[in-house]
């Protein structure tokens, strides 16, 4: 799920008619000063991160003058919070607060509808308040067909113990909150605290929207770069991985890093799962062995070999891993040789020097295991293929043995050599790249396996060499399945 920063969420709420404090985001101390000058009142400065408890981290500070705002901002921008460098702060007017409430919208998987929660007590530790004073909390399922009516919103606030004009004002905010959430496909939308000021106005003092990953395509206006749930900004590799996924919707590819700097101690491995459940089971097996996964990766849903290859290349862009573990559910419906071919290409290019255990159970697993064995035999490190009858626990144990045999050598990332296609190579574009067939090697080839392996039958022999049998545009549109056979 794509999280929005507080300042972005506030802009959306404001567009939806909810009152928010006057302010703006600042990327430098000078900008912070300019915002404070424009506001012309004491301000609050808030670091923009996807973390709760910012006050305790020194991430929320007050300033009476623009000069003070500049000085404080200078210290806040660039501060490190849990391995993450702050690059922006929100500068806004300081409110005179009389009361704090809480409003939040989540999707209820049991009732299959949005659930709106309101609390007459808000602010820090709202969960604790809810536990101690259940009478101050009220929740209500929303009918997505009719939306949230004014009378329903008023009733919700009343059930939390508030009456009078405050109740009516709060109910209006709740109705607007739902409308914004629905319009922006938010999976959660939270205002905490929702405040009543000394001059009896309701403000959203802090808020967070999380947009549904699957609906990000409907909202180019939000400028979401990586539609993934992270509690920190994405790493460079994660951004590259997301681009691969964005450009190729055949199958799914998910990648995130547990660490972007692998320490010398501990046995870190590259992890490559297939399928959510199978990946989870395999990850459990790896962790139970005492390995530390450097990353989590999942390629599933019948991806082409080229996508698996790109995933493997990204995993192998992590220096310091001491092994490669790939494992899925064990009984996959899709043909497993696609994954095997993708892995082989990556391993050969990297001249893999750390051991790999690849559990590719499912349809045509025998062929997948054969491909791994046939093409990886001359690599510096051992690559072993396993099938559906081999438990993930056993495969993890085997990787441990191989890493020990390999003296726990660490993977080094080599610079990518510039690719120079052989002179006269047959070349054509595919959906995600370019395929080269080196015709210089063809005279020595007897099997012409490329013709046989081509499932969509887009290759033909011409003067004993494979060439494209269809129009190049068709191959580019996806007729070429990028099998890497």
């Amino acid at each position, binding site marked *: 799920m794509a999280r929005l920063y507080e300042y972005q969420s506030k802009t959306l709420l404001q567009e939806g008619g909810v009152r928010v404090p006057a302010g703006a985001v600042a990327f430098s101390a000078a900008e912070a000063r300019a915002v404070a000058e424009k506001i012309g009142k004491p301000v609050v400065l808030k670091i923009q991160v996807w973390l709760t408890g910012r006050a305790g981290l020194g991430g929320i500070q007050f300033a009476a003058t623009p000069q003070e705002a500049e000085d404080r901002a200078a210290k806040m921008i660039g501060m490190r919070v849990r391995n993450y460098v702050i690059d922006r702060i929100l500068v806004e007017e300081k409110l005179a607060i009389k009361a704090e409430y809480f409003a939040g919208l989540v999707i209820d*998987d049991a009732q299959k509808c949005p659930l709106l929660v309101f609390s007459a007590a808000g602010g820090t530790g709202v969960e604790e308040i809810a536990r101690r004073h259940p009478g101050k909390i009220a929740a209500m399922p929303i*009918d997505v067909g009719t939306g949230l009516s004014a009378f329903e919103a008023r009733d919700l606030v009343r059930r939390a113990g508030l009456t009078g004009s405050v109740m009516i004002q709060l109910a209006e905010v709740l109705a607007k909150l739902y409308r914004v959430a629905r319009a922006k496909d938010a999976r959660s939308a939270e205002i905490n605290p929702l405040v009543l000021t000394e001059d009896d106005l309701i403000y959203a003092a802090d808020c967070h929207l999380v947009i549904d990953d699957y609906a990000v395509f409907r909202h180019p206006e939000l400028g979401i770069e990586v539609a993934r749930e992270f509690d920190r900004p994405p790493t460079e590799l994660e951004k590259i991985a997301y681009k691969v996924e964005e450009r190729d919707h055949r199958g799914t590819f998910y990648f995130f890093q547990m660490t972007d700097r692998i320490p010398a101690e501990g046995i870190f491995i590259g992890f490559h799962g297939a*399928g959510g*459940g199978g990946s989870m089971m395999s990850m459990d097996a790896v962790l139970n062995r005492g390995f530390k996964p450097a990353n*989590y990766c999942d390629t599933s849903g019948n991806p082409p070999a080229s996508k698996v290859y790109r995933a493997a290349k990204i995993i192998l862009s992590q220096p310091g891993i001491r092994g490669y573990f790939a494992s899925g559910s*064990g*009984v996959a*419906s899709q043909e497993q040789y696609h994954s095997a071919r993708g892995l082989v290409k990556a391993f050969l290019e990297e001249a893999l020097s750390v051991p790999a255990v690849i559990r590719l159970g499912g349809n045509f697993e025998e062929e997948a295991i054969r491909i791994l064995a046939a093409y990886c035999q001359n690599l510096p490190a051992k690559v072993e293929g396993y099938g*559906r009858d081999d438990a993930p626990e056993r495969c993890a144990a085997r990787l441990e043995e191989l890493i020990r045999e390999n003296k726990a050598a660490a993977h080094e990332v080599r610079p990518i050599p510039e690719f120079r296609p052989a002179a006269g190579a047959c070349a054509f574009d595919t959906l995600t790249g370019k395929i080269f067939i080196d015709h210089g090697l063809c005279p020595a080839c007897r099997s012409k396996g490329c013709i046989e392996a081509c499932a969509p039958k887009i290759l033909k022999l011409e003067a004993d060499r494979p060439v494209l049998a269809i129009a190049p545009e068709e191959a580019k549109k996806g007729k070429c399945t990028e099998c890497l056979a």
Partner: protein
Amino acid sequence: MSILVDEKSRVIIQGITGREGMARAQLMKDYGTNVVAGVTPGRGGQNVYGIPVFDSVAAAWEKEGPVDISVIFIPAALVRNAALEAFAAGVKLLVIVPDRVPIYDVLDISRAAKEKGARFVGPNTLGLLSPGKAVLGMIGGRAQRAREWFRPGGLGVSSRSGGMTSAIAYYLTRAGFGQSTIIHVGGDAVVGLSHPEVMELFESDDETKAVAMFGEIGTTQEERVADLIKARKFTKPLIAFIGGKAAKSGTRFSHAGAIVEGSRGSYETKVQRLGEVGVHVVDTIFDIPKKAKDILG
């Protein structure tokens, strides 16, 4: 018996002329599913593997007769419309295969289903299969494999992961236990039929003697199964395997459903709640057939 589908169920495929639709139409037909029609707007009059294609669900119904089930293979952004079309035509069960369906679209589909007294499996599902009778979706990949891997028998299988649905059923077959129906409820946070609803169906199916369930961290499905057992609405032996034990709270996995929200949805809570009501919670997938042997002999 089996649940939701058997060899008599009359099935249509929405999106039958697409890449996935075509490939899976062949699987379903070869396996023995009673596929009566396909639907792709604008392609009416064509046919796919001898299955007649219509422009709309209503047109298919009119020409080929009543439809029990529609299996949907169309791009995620268009799923909502296709599902509403099927409900409007009178179809009472949908299998929504695509992933990445926006969550508010799923909520809209769910509301329409309630209104029409209909149900749906998925989205983001591999589908379901009643061994020897019919397959809906893509379980097994190819008919011959599906026949080898899954055999008729008394175990129900319900899983939140597609691969694990096949894996659990295959390991049961290997140990000599056939299955009544195996179902992938879908990998998303909100799905049509979730574990507790499937358990109720297995409860009223005579052939099902026991059930194996694969759960995951995130959502309240497994906790609600525990509630169901406590209320004596599910009384058959249940073997559960829960993934995500080693995941730290807050670690996100590729199933959007696997989201840890406080203690609700955590591995510990699920195992504890299921254990309290007498569910056999196992630690590895290979313990599932072993436990089945203990229970059924």
